[in-house]
């Protein structure tokens, strides 16, 4: 019997449909159906100036907007041959790591609610609001930031931000203990999660699964270590791994990643305190868009030499490895923008890790994938 779970289903946390073939309670086959939120972001990007695409990046992954801005910015700077100042890089890494905590808190809230435990949803959202407050302080937005620009970031951190940020992450460190008490210390939680959704490292690599799902299988693959982009090479942190390859393992990896993110954030804050400087590269062409108005017409296009280039970047996003590929054929707009969404592949690999379990196991297993449909469908 094929059962449709979605697109309006509390389990999906967004718009996608999981078609499940069940025999009794046992799952025999699954067929994820995506595309309900396909907004044509790659197509719209071909009609926009580079900095204007950033507004789309926030909405591509709405729980990790700054991570996706970072991804796009790295690729765009490569394609346009622009080097940002180092302080901007540090601010970007700080933002990306704060965003990682925010995204994982959102995941925690949604995942535990799937198990029927409603309290941590409230705790997770409450503590995520503190992160969003920090973002609002320096970017001006709660969920859609439009903060990074090609060649730097929009503005420097406001005064007193670093102290406040330290206060918040200290407070969050205590909350992580509380989360573990609510979940890991609960026999029912462990019975629901242990040994579910097993996906070995070999299978994960073959099926393209990345991020916490891969690391929970014992793999130490983390692009921040393996291929240090931005200033991650200068920061000290560990790769969070687990060796159970199941739902509990993914929970542990994400919790440990949040603690490591706090570690990175503290280092970034120390560096930022000591090293003032510019946050925007000089000599930027005005046709990039904001903060300049991209005033262009035919005359402007004809009398100007544009650089051409290809940009490619991979970023360890909270959900997995996200990629961007930009073709700059010498124009105001990119010729082609292609994104790799980790969530699309992670969901699609459900064909591998879902069959054999029961219907009641679908919410915890799919919850541990951390689905963000916006970036999956783009």
């Amino acid at each position, binding site marked *: 019997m094929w059962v449709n779970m979605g697109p309006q289903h509390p389990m999906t946390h967004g718009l996608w449909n999981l078609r499940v073939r069940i025999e009794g309670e046992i799952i025999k086959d699954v067929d994820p159906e995506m595309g309900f939120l396909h907004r044509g972001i790659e197509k719209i990007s071909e009609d926009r100036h580079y900095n204007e695409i950033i507004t789309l990046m926030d909405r591509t992954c709405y729980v990790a907007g700054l991570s996706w801005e970072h991804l796009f910015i790295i690729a765009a700077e490569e394609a346009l041959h622009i080097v940002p100042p180092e302080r901007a890089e540090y601010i970007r890494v700080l933002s990306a790591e704060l965003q990682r905590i925010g995204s994982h808190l959102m995941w925690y809230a949604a995942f535990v609610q799937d198990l029927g*435990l409603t309290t941590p949803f409230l705790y997770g959202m409450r503590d995520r609001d503190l992160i969003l407050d920090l973002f609002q302080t320096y970017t001006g937005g709660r969920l859609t930031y439009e903060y990074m620009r090609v060649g730097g970031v929009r503005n420097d951190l406001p005064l007193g931000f670093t102290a406040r940020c330290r206060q918040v992450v200290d407070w969050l460190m205590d909350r992580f203990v509380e989360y573990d008490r609510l979940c890991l210390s609960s026999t029912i939680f462990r019975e629901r999660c242990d040994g579910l959704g097993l996906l070995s490292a070999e299978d994960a690599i073959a099926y393209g699964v990345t991020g916490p799902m891969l690391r929970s299988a014992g793999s130490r693959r983390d692009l921040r270590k393996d291929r240090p982009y931005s200033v991650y090479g200068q920061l000290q942190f560990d790769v969070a791994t687990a060796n159970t390859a199941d739902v509990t393992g993914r929970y542990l990896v994400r919790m440990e990643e949040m603690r490591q993110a706090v570690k990175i954030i503290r280092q970034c804050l120390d560096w930022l305190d000591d090293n003032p400087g510019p946050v925007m590269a000089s000599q930027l062409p005005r046709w990039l868009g904001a903060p300049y108005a991209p005033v262009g017409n035919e005359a402007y296009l004809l009398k100007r030499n544009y650089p051409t280039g290809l940009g490619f970047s991979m970023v360890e996003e909270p959900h997995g490895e996200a990629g961007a590929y930009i073709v700059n054929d010498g124009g105001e707009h990119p010729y082609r923008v292609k994104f790799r969404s980790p969530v699309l592949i992670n969901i699609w690999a459900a064909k591998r890790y879902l069959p054999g379990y*029961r219907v009641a196991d679908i919410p915890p297993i799919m*919850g541990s994938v951390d689905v963000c449909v916006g970036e999956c469908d783009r």
Partner: protein
Amino acid sequence: MSSASLFSVSDTIAAWLLAHIAYVFPPPVKGWLTSGDVVLGLTALIFSAILLGASMINVIVLIWWERKLLGRFMDRRGAMHVGFAGLLQNFADGLKLFRKDTVRPTQADELGFWLSPTAYLVTSLVIFAILPISTGWNGGSLPLTLLLALVIFSFAPLFIFLGAWASNNKYALIGGMRSAAQMIAYEVPILLAVVAVVVLAGSFDLTTIVMEQRNYWFWAPLFLALIVFLTGMLAEMERIPFDLPEAEAELVEGWNTEYGGMLFAFFMLADYVRYLVGSILVVLLFLGGWTLPSYVPSVLTSFPLAGIVWFMVKVYLVFGVFVWVRASLPRMRTDQLLRLGWMRMVPLALLSVILAALVVAAHCLPVLGCVPSMGG
């Protein structure tokens, strides 16, 4: 303890009413109207009305209590803007649901779709007729009140399954099947735990069971039975660690997926009626009912209706425990739930029966001083 009882109050009201009504009628009718049978009939009616009204109000306050408590567990406030502290929120919900359109899916079975919510609510409400609230404040005093209450309590899966099947929805059907399986499985540990109480009290009559607790409440010797009974009640009431039939994450709303409007309100009300009944049973069986320990100063027990007040306080606190559990535990899976029921709860319940027997035996040993009233 007040000497008034619910029956005497309704009897007084009925007699007063009939006397005034009969005043305008000629003597033969007047005589018939004031005869004992008519008064008794009207008494029964008034009695039921009072009971129904009181229990409904309690149920609605119970919903409010849960929302507020749950809010505090979750670091938020819960309903607070409708009425004082949100007290009127649930009345608004009920009125709105009453006003709302009720849609029956075209494929649904008509009779079952309409019948099951009503029957579910009615059977749940019937239990109130035999539950003693305080001395004399119960409807019927039968020798087997406890068994009768539990029997009526276990009608529920029938109607839930009927409603789930009738609404012709995959999610609802799975929810209904889970509900039936779970309720039937947890009857056994509940009844065994009750057996322990009965062994200790020596009676199936709830009033007697409460009166037997005047020396000490039964939760102390029967702690195991209390745990088993609470767990079993959680499963019977389908509350959170065991709310598989309504598991939101996999079955949209469980067996009431297709129900809206007044029928949904019936289901909700009946659920909370069952929560109330479950809490009352816990209080009656293990927490001494309306009695208070003897060291409590008599000021606290001598005001009018003190029994009912203390009883309700206990009931709401017990329900608070249920809410606490809901706020801190995730949901189980069907197989784990059944395994917990059969492999953990049944042995524990058997153990508690043995414990109860030992306690009774200890009372009867001459060395320790036999207490005949313990029913051994």
